[in-house]
């Protein structure tokens, strides 16, 4: 099928296209220079055209998401999806699989990464991916509390650690190294936690610093497309900004050596908003958003996503088990907690970020502080769905960024006065341009994930993942911006129109992307010898039953990496 999208105002930061009126030609799922006369013409005059959205951090499938659904039938009732010709679904903060795919697609998103996959439960994550239509997806297995990783790092054996990481990525069909509260979730198994970067992890005797540095080195040894993806220690605690800075600083000397993709960063700090709190308690807590943003601007080795609070009732879920316990003790609501054998843990707690609450309003302002003071080349828009808010609020976040007037309305009329008092949100009149919005939702994400070869841009040869929004680039009305980005005028997935006027018109099933890193045979043999013993001794499953089989995807999209030089 051929298309020509005529006269759209195009924003494609990867190719430095900033609001130019141009035509985009689509043929056989790719963007091409020209098409034949048979091409369907789509008039995009007075509309803006962007690459399909790429979300680098969202929780859309797997064990904790499903636990969230089970734990919260009342959330399921809150939002019912019932459109003619499509699968029914429900759930506001933890929507069911089909609804998740449809809604992402409706917003013009085409690739979404599940940010935390317990390796042992990889099969479940992939099973949900099979039922997640409209988008390409990938999942990041958790490594930061994994016994094998901790032991190899304790022994200082980076080569074996690298071999294990490569094997696990392949076995679980995972995409990148995710680290959550390094050492802390393992300590939680002992009823403890770690707070500082140099706290000792019970039994293993190493520190979070060793884990972050070790895995960052392993990541570059293997040359993975994405850098380490880190949720540092001490999440959500006042005063944690120092821990966050230390964590960012500790990998500064490591150089990026990706064998796939174009990233130049070695560290990705996710949901930075939750890690930018000053003060010593919630009484004297202040925003350190500006300080963090300045650090991010000054340093080239890292990228961050924000995890913007959207002031909704939502469901928090993370592999950071001890943190979820803290949260449950704070709000007294129901919770679920889980230990995943040798690998990780997790917790789920419902949460109400009320705009009337002083702390929640401050958290909201900290996220915006980060956005408004950071260089738009270095930040990424997320809500850490559903932790800080559901992904269907991205359009609202975009509206807060684009329109100072809309932001002001919220500061003056909707949120608690702490938002303005304890942050720098009112010090700036910065308004994001459409070009910058395209950066923080497309260009930056695809680059940092190592997927910018054919995603997140509209250059020749790129996948024809395209979003068209019916909005004037100069629009400042918050409600209009929100509506336009919530209901894309058109969305293309691999060259086919899947959304029209915000409604899904075609159901497609995307690829599951994973990394297949080939390691040296001798090293692999040594690793398998070691792993066989461990599986027999500790795991409840046999090593033969552990890997995710071929059948667990609609279509696999492997990223092949040759790491055989590691010996």
């Amino acid at each position, binding site marked *: 099928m051929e298309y020509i999208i005529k006269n759209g105002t195009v924003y494609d930061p990867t190719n430095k296209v900033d609001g130019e009126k141009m035509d985009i030609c689509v043929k056989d799922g790719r963007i091409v220079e020209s098409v034949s006369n048979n091409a369907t013409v789509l008039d995009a005059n007075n509309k803006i055209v962007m690459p399909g959205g790429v979300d680098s951090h969202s929780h859309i499938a797997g064990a904790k998401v499903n636990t969230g659904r089970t*734990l*919260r*039938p*009342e*959330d399921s*009732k809150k939002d019912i999806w019932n459109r003619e010709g499509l699968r029914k679904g429900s759930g506001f903060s933890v929507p069911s699989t089909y609804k998740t795919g449809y809604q992402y697609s409706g917003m013009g998103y085409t690739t979404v990464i599940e940010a935390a996959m317990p390796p042992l439960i990889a099969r479940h994550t992939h099973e949900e991916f099979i039922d997640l239509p409209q988008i390409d997806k990938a999942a990041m297995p958790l490594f930061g509390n994994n016994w094998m990783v901790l032991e190899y790092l304790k022994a200082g054996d980076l080569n074996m650690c690298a071999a294990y990481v490569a094997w696990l990525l392949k076995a679980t069909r995972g995409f990148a190294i995710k680290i959550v509260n390094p050492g802390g979730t393992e300590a939680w198994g002992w009823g403890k936690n770690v707070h500082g970067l140099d706290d000792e992890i019970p039994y293993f005797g190493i520190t979070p610093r060793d884990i972050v540095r070790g895995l960052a080195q392993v990541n570059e040894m293997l040359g993975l497309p994405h850098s380490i993806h880190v949720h540092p220690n001490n999440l959500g605690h006042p005063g944690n900004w120092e821990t966050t800075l230390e964590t960012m600083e500790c990998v500064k000397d490591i150089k990026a050596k990706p064998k796939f993709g174009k990233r130049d960063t070695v560290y990705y700090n996710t949901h930075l908003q939750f890690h930018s709190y000053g003060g010593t308690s919630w009484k004297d807590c202040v925003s350190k958003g500006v300080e963090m943003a300045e650090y991010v601007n000054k340093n080239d080795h890292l990228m961050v996503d924000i995890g913007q609070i959207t002031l909704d009732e939502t469901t928090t879920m993370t592999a950071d088990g001890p943190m979820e316990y803290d949260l449950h003790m704070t709000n007294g*609501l*129901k919770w679920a907690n889980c230990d995943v054998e040798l690998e990780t843990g997790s917790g789920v707690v419902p949460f109400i970020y009320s705009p009337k609450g002083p702390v929640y309003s401050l958290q909201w302002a900290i996220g915006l502080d980060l956005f408004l003071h950071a260089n738009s080349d270095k930040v990424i828009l997320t809500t850490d769905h559903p932790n800080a808010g559901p992904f269907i609020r991205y359009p609202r976040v975009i509206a807060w960024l684009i329109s100072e007037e809309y932001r002001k309305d919220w500061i003056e009329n909707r949120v608690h006065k702490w938002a303005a008092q304890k942050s720098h949100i009112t010090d700036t009149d910065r308004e994001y341009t459409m070009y910058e919005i395209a950066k923080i939702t497309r260009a930056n994400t695809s680059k940092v994930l190592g997927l910018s070869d054919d995603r997140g841009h509209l250059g020749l040869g790129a996948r024809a993942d395209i979003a068209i929004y019916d909005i004037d680039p100069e629009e400042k009305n918050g409600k209009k911006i929100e509506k336009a980005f919530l209901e894309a005028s058109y969305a293309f997935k691999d060259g086919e129109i899947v959304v029209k006027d915000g409604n899904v018109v075609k159901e497609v099933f995307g690829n599951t992307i994973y990394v297949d890193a080939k390691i040296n045979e001798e090293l692999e043999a040594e690793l398998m010898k070691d792993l066989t013993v461990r599986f027999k001794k500790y795991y409840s499953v046999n090593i033969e039953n552990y890997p995710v089989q071929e059948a667990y995807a609609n279509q696999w999209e492997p990223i092949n990496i040759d790491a055989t030089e590691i010996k």
Partner: protein
Amino acid sequence: MKEVIFTVNAEIDVPVELDSLLPKNLQDMGIEEIKKIQLPQGNKKISVDELCDVVVNENDDGDATLKVIINGSSMKLKRIGEKMDGGEIIVNGDAGMYVGAEMKSGKITVNGNAECWVGQNLKGGEIVINGNAKDYVGSAYRGDWRGMNGGKITINGNVGTEIGEYMKKGLIVINGNCKIMPGVHQNGGIIMLNGEVEGRAGGEMLKGAIVINGPLKSKLPSFEYEGIVEDPLIKLTKKDEGTQIKGAYYKYIGDFVNNKPKGQLYLSVEHNDPVY
């Protein structure tokens, strides 16, 4: 005053949901329009005139209330008066699940029995069931910790288990007998039980009051005895003017499986043994 009378004439097997037949929705509709309303029935739809005969009576007495009367109702008619906001519904016959669920104001009278979930998450208004009701009268939706938040439910017959679960405000009066766990997780409001109660009243309650005027067959051990009170005035908050009840009661505070509970449990002296 406008009166819309539905008389069920169809034999139905799969339950029909009537939540669109609210007085407010029917206010400005003509009879033909009402007859064409589509009602969900399982995975299909049925129109009102396939289900029942419709009669509309109107007079100009200046009364703006709209009265909906459902004759020949059965347990197969679900969600009667769900999310109702004003007006009155009279059900002659039985009412299926969720009668008056999430209702804000108005009045529903059922001259028959009711299925489970009468007045689920009730916010205001009044529900009267003249027959029996099953489980979860005035309870919260599954998983929710924010239950009934106002209004009054009266059941003149017997009820099932777990009534008033997570109740926050309002009043539930049961004139018949009650099965286990009335007021489980109760967090406010008053439950008056005038018949026999099977047991476990107020399990995990934090606030609110349960008054039992009949015998309670087994009391939870995690309630602390306070003494005998005559004609107590139940105050639920500092600002609460209080609700006066008549008679002599053993008063307990609980449920002490929680920290610092303020739940009040009153057992009538006349029908209960002094157990403390």
